[in-house]
């Protein structure tokens, strides 16, 4: 079966939305995090790993997450996989920030 990201010739997908949109702060930060993690002097991750991590998202998440939402999920998957963060640490921090209303 074809993977969800492999879109060429996908029936009924319709035209690509090429319109630009304003980037939110979280989107810019996500981009910066990936640039930093993948920079040649750090090389904590490679962009190829990011692609593979994003491709591993459940299809319903892949379809519904915005572009940088997929990036964020990719970072989380790789940080947990590389034992840099645990899922619990990420969830705890998210809960903390939600409590602060941020």
């Amino acid at each position: 079966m074809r993977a969800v990201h492999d879109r060429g010739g996908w029936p009924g997908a319709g035209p690509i939305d090429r319109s630009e949109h304003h980037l939110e702060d979280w989107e810019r930060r996500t981009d910066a995090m990936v640039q930093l993690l993948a920079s040649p002097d750090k090389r904590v991750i490679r962009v190829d790993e990011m692609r593979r991590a994003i491709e591993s998202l459940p299809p319903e998440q892949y379809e519904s997450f915005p572009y940088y939402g997929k990036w964020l999920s990719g970072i989380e998957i790789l940080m947990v996989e590389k034992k840099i963060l645990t899922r619990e640490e990420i969830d705890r921090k998210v809960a903390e920030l939600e409590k602060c209303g941020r």
Partner: protein
Amino acid sequence: MEIGARFKPGDRVRVRSGNPPGHIRTPAYIRGKTGRVEAVQGLFRNPESLAFGGEGLPRQPLYFVGFNQSEVWGRYDGSPLDTLRVDIYEHWLEPA
């Protein structure tokens, strides 16, 4: 042209079929199709290994392969002269 490149511009090649597990850079719609090598792009680390934390070595020749659109799609309404070009790594190609 490149050291270790098995094919040269002008060679007819067939893209391998199948859907192996892992991270693949060869799109599904082009697998099993026959095209012509237009250029050897150079040697690059294999992304299928890099994607899982490997070093991607040995470097793989990457080819710019041209296909006829009407051969790629079952139903193609455009001109029969339309072509499609895809970057494909050597291990996905066989002589045709």
